[in-house]
């Protein structure tokens, strides 16, 4: 039997064939295109329609963008250059307006020789925010974060350095009261005193104290009034101040809304619903028209500060709802476990509930922040010079009368970059905080 094989089969392959490439139609770019672009008549139709849309959009905008003129002093000059080089009626952007007016778009009417101050404040902000955003940074750096608001305030508005210092002292005072009273009088009294003491201090002592200290040691830089603030600087200040201030307030409101205490619960619900039910622009008009009615006669305070307060309250109500969603999504077992460990309310919240609830709420919170940052453009209606207000001002000038798209594109692009990076950061954070099994 052993030799039959040799007679019937003249050739036996002893080695494997090398792996062959798939046919041309079934690999690489062609396969990908067949699967993703041309898999059926409907798919082909959609591809063609999309291609046409893309071509149409690019054909209408790209010449305008790339024929753009960068060196001109006015729109008329731009048109003359265009007519000379590209011919009458050609489509060409006049980017020269950005070169001419970028300082205004970024800083408003802030004095030119002092531009280093907002820039430095922004750098400090980036340094201060880093330890919060990225867990890899040393924890000690959080001290810089705590101090940075006061430094930034001083840099932006100028004036005496003692004013932010005396404001900061209020926080120190509250913290000291909390630490000193908690062992003696119990947590409830300590919290109430720690909340009331700084408020009284700010109302009655902070201002005179700053003036006294200024008499002793003068620490001044040039004062810049709020009217001179404008452009993206204004958007950033209102946005960042609103974001920083609204988060703690929003968390407190959310806790209030989840609370069993009837009155606290109803106050929180009423506040949140009233704030959320009315558009921001109505609140801004309220701030500019009505706030003086609600304050003691003769009080008159800065419009920008009023706007920041309103924006903060507005965003806090939205954040409260987001955080409430997070609190409600936690399994009841977590609350019961915290109770079983014998933790008191604040410890349970701080150590068990909020870390989990906030993690769930991160996408919503970042979305609220993005919304808040975009909404800073609404201040144009109450007479502040945000980028859109400045684009109107630039258009009203003799040189740039009638320029629309270039300014819109620039403003839109900057907002897009800021908001898009915020949403990407939220995705990153979501991934990083993922504690599930997958």
């Amino acid at each position, binding site marked *: 039997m052993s030799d039959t094989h040799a007679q019937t089969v003249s050739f036996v392959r002893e080695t494997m064939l090398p792996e062959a490439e798939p046919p041309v139609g079934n690999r690489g770019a062609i396969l990908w295109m067949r699967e993703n*672009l041309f898999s059926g008549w409907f798919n082909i139709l959609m591809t063609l329609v999309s291609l046409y849309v893309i071509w149409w959009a690019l054909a209408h905008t790209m010449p305008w963008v790339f024929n753009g003129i960068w060196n001109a002093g006015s729109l008329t000059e731009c048109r003359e250059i265009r007519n000379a080089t590209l011919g009458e009626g050609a489509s060409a952007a006049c980017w020269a307006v950005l070169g001419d007016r970028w300082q205004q778009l970024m800083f408003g009417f802030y004095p030119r020789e002092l531009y280093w101050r907002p820039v430095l404040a922004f750098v400090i902000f980036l340094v201060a925010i880093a330890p919060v955003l990225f867990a890899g940074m040393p924890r000690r750096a959080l001290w810089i974060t705590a101090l940075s608001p006061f430094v930034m305030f001083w840099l932006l508005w100028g004036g005496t350095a003692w004013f932010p210092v005396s404001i900061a002292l209020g926080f120190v005072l509250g913290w000291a009261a909390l630490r000193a009273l908690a062992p003696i009088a119990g947590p*409830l009294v300590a919290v109430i005193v720690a909340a009331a003491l700084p408020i009284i201090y700010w109302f009655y002592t902070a201002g005179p104290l700053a003036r006294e200290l200024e008499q002793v040691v003068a620490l001044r830089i040039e004062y810049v009034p709020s009217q001179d603030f404008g452009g993206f600087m204004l958007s950033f200040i209102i946005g960042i101040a609103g974001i920083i201030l609204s988060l703690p307030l929003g968390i407190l409101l959310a806790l209030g809304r989840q609370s069993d205490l009837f009155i606290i619960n109803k*106050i929180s619900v009423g506040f949140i619903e009233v704030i959320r*039910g009315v558009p921001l622009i109505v609140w801004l008009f309220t701030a500019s028209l009505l706030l003086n009615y609600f304050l003691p006669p003769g009080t008159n305070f800065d419009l920008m500060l009023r706007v920041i307060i309103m924006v903060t309250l507005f965003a806090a109500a939205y954040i409260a709802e987001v955080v409430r969603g997070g609190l409600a999504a936690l399994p009841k077992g977590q609350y019961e476990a915290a109770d079983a460990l014998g933790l008191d309310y604040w410890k*349970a919240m701080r150590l068990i509930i909020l870390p989990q609830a906030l993690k769930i709420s991160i996408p919503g919170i970042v979305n609220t922040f993005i919304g808040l940052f975009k909404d800073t453009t*609404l201040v144009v209606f109450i007479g502040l010079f945000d980028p859109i207000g400045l684009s109107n001002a630039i258009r009203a000038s003799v040189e740039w009368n009638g320029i629309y798209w270039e300014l819109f594109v620039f403003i839109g692009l900057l*907002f897009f970059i800021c908001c898009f990076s915020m949403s990407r950061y939220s995705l990153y954070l979501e991934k990083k905080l993922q504690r599930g099994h997958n």
Partner: protein
Amino acid sequence: MTTTSDAPKAGFRPSQLIYDTRYRSLTIQVIAFIALMLGLSWLVSNTVANLSALGKDFDFGFLGQRAGYDINQRLIEYDSASSHGRAALVGILNTLLVAALGCVLATIVGVLAGVLRLSKNWLIAKLMAVYVEGFRNIPVLLWILLIFALMTEATPQPRDFREGGGASMIFGDTVAITNRGVFVPAPAWGNGSLILLIVLVLSLVAVWGWRRYAHKTQEETGRILPIGWGTLGLLVVPLTIAFLALSMTSGRVTQPIYVAGGIEGASLAEFGAAQQGINACAVPNSTESLNLRRALRAEGLRFNVVPVTTAEEAIAAAEAGRCNILSLPASTDAATVPAGAVALSDTIQRGSPVQFESPVLGGFNFEGGLQLRNSLIALWLALSLYTGAFIAENVRGGILSVSKGQTEAAFALGIKPSRTMRLVILPQALRVIIPPMISQYLNLTKNSSLAIAVGYMDARSTLGGITINQTGKELEGMLLLGLFYLVTSLVISSAMNLYNSRVKLKER
């Protein structure tokens, strides 16, 4: 916390107010209540002091006063002699109009974009991603201004539509896009439009009955009746038949044109040539007035329209000399024809139940048709596209939230793909999609207050804008405005809660 220890035997001690959980919550609430009341009374006393210092009072009497300003966009009758309250109502209706239009378009755009972003076609998925990210990350105010600038700066002027002007109307000379707004055909209602409405209602009832019957049949016998085609047929066929029948019969009826101060039996052209000015009495939005105007335009005559509400009023107006041309049904008794009026040789048709009047280029602007102002269009488009981007994300999330196993299970049961979508996927996805979608509607309604950017006269511009400036009643005006938005929001969100409780999964 809710834990309670064993009740102490001893009597009540003041320190329990702080240390005993049973009393502590009461203490906290009382303190919070006192703080709230103190704060409120501080605000109220400040307001009272400030108002008296300014010599103002707090009353809403200004709503009854004469407004004295014009509103170019209005859904109800209004002129500058109307009251501030009426102006506020016009504004509120305008807000609701743009909100309703915006919600409809945003839903369509959002659902389309959301579904297409999940498409297997790579190109279209990426295109939709660009749309969504672009609109979500740029302020809506910028979009409103951008679209408004597009509408006013990049569209032709009405005079460009003349011969050789370089612009032309679209959709068969029915729609004109100009820098003064978009002109679209307006419906005019004629004889038998009521019958048409009745037919429509009857077919809706029939559709309802057919769907019930189909469901019942399927429950009992398992036989599946064509619900979709049946619905379509029941809606379209009777309406078409009724419309055609009415157009053939009463639509073909002609009626004479009566004129004052003309020669009996003369043609319209001869009458027009003999007259100084032509004033036509006509009921607005009726096919008769539309056909009369068409006849006059066909002769190249210029004329004014005197609006009246009924045929009797038209006769009275003609006798009073306010108009010198009108058309009455042929069946009208000769005695009621206005004194001194004679019939011309030309006649007009009574017209179909519904006809559409296309805009035509008049002296300086388009006449006839419906003018949609640029402010409305820009606001509407910008709000819809902006909100649509958010809705697209909700829709995508909702569809992704239904696990693939559901589709596979439905296929395993032998259910067709279209029916799988309708009966298995959509009901589950909608539960996730609808609540955030309604809150997007809420956002759209609130964002419509950005009408201020384009000069659209919404509630904020009338009640919270010009009225406040004219009467100096900031406090009352802003209060009413806030109340309007608050009530709208609460109504929409309570509708959402109702829906939520209906579709909630029925758990143990």
